[in-house]
């Protein structure tokens, strides 16, 4: 098992844990944290490929920085949505927010 595979497996594990969390957690903050985990799993992949395979070593790093920036924005927006929801429902349980039920 070479070192690239180690990183890739680690990234996949991180991503899967995040996905698991997003789908199963009923707490909105928990879902947000799980999404951060998924993003970081993807980031790890970018960095690993950049380190071991890329002919131009800067590209993967730029993408990673970009993803981190987006993640920060996403966290800000996500948190404000959660805040608004909390003001309305007095709860951050996703099961309470079911207005779209058909």
């Amino acid at each position, binding site marked *: 098992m070479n070192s690239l595979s180690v990183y890739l497996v680690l990234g996949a594990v991180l991503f899967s844990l995040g996905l698991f969390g997003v*789908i199963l957690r009923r707490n909105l903050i928990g879902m947000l944290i799980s999404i951060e985990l998924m993003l970081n799993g993807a980031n790890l992949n970018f960095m690993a490929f950049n380190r071991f395979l890329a002919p131009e070593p800067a590209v993967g790093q730029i993408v990673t920085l970009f993803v981190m920036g987006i993640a920060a924005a996403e966290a800000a927006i996500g948190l404000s949505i959660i805040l608004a929801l909390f003001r309305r429902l007095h709860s951050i349980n*996703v099961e309470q*927010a*079911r*207005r779209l039920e*058909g």
Partner: protein
Amino acid sequence: MMWLAKDPVLLAASACATLPFVSMVVILIFTRRYRSMSAAISISAIAACLLSALYLLWTLRHAPEPVQYQWAWIVSNDMIIPFGFLLDRLSLLMLTIVAVIAFLVQVYSLGYMAGDPGFSRYYAFQSLFAWAMMTMVIAPGMLQLYIFWELVGLASYLLIGFYYEKWSASQAGKKAFVMTRLGDIGFFLGIIAVLLGFGDLGILSMNEAAQAHRIAPSVVTLSALLIFCGVVGKSAQFPLLTWLPDAMEGPTPVSALLHSATMVAAGVYMMSRIFPFFAASPDAMAVTLFIGTVTMLLASTMAMVAYDIKQVWAYSTISQLGFMVMALGAGGYFAGVFHLTTHAGFKALLFLCSGIFIHEYHTNDMREIGRGGGRKLIIPMVCMTVGALALSGIFPLSGFFSKEAIMGVLAAKPNKVWLVAGLLGALMTAYYSFRLIFMILFPRQPAHHDAAHQGTGHDDHGHEAGHHGATFWAMAWPVMILAGITLVLGFFHKDLEHFLLGAGPAVHEAEFHGEGAGHGLGHYVLLFSAVSLALGGIVWAWLEFGRKGAAQEGFLRRYPKVEALFANRWYIDHAYRWLLDHLVYGGFTNLFTRNDRRVIDGAIDGICRFTVGGGRVVSFLQSGMVQYNLVLMVAGVGAVILFFVL
């Protein structure tokens, strides 16, 4: 613009084809509120056209070949559609007629329309009318002719419905538009037939090719018959004749213009324009002759029972147009065009005279005009009598010469039915014209009416004498000029004939047969019988309406059924009504309505219902939980990845 100045003929032709349009636009956009300025603009535009037309007539009177300015408008493979001016003898003559009549009518309208709220609008439409007609007259190709033909129809729609706040007027305008349109469909199909069968819409080339038998005879017959449909609509021939009497709803000067030199004349003009083309198809000519005869007789009978002064002249127009179509159908090119010319003069005269009466007495009923003292208006009364004499075809007046020419052509036909019909028409024409004249001249029930009206009558007279000012003279002068033209035009008969036929490109055998047969002893017998029949008609009218103690009822009063038949226009309108109700409304409209309600609406409603119902069913899938959606999304992406990887 330099090239225009170098060629005065082109300059004059362009002036005719643009100035009235410019005047219409200027009036509609800038001077609607300044009445006198609108009238001045419109009249000066038409006066300039009149001068240009006279100049063209004078310059080109000896031109051996038609002068043609044309630019290819649409060229596609072998198909050429020209746009421009064609100045030959026929179009120059017609251009002059149109310009003269339009000019006189516009001057007359200064008096007739004075004080009307729509004064500027009226002059704008008059300009449009003159422009459309003049450009149509000098069109070198059938498509240009057709475009301006429709514009003439539009202008007459606008003018017939001029008093649009009046229900009957707007209905009459609509009727005129729709009925002529019915014929125009045929006309357009005819143009397409020419285009498919020959490929060139130039009038001269069409005429030449048809005469030289370079077009298949079936194509010529088919397209001639289709084009004749346009004439039937425009010139109010049977069976589309009922729009013209209703067109009386417009102001009287409009009727004068419509009935003499423009609208209805357009049909006959167009037919003589492509006369060689028609003449190449004996079948089409036979149909034309038949339709003309039927129209002439029907309309004459209708005129014999009408009491509305304008309606009598309207029926007489239809009948005279039928007469012209007969002449053309019998091969008498010159006779038809000559009658068109003289008729334009005396029919405008008759209408303008009637307009003065209507303006003074505010009624269209000839009995009331007579009782009101119509004969006190000397100038219009004399002029109207002159017009009626010309219409009846009495010797020194213009109508005599043109009617004789037509009778000569009809007599040359082997079948004498046409001649008999023509003579019968002449008799009826004289009868109904003088029925009207005598009813106004010798009113009945003068006893109590005059006694009651004596004082006011004199007052009226004094009042009239007072207001015989500019308004009256603006109406009287055009009338007198037209009466003068009617008096002398006949004596230029031979000159006109030489002018039209002299070096014309296509001279027709039928014409020469007609003339040849006309010059013998038979000619004098014919002349004598036609005039004596006309005189007989006048005497007949005198016996029934003129002499002292005459009942003024007419012999038709004794046959109430026949009278009702004539007064109801042979129930042609009723037939149309029935056809409309049963065939159009009951048949097509009903069918289409059902199609619309059941099939189209049903289909659309069905689609809507399906969509709504489908949405309702599918919405059960929506639980409102974000995470279920997320699971589905992940599964979907996974499936896509699996699909691409495996």
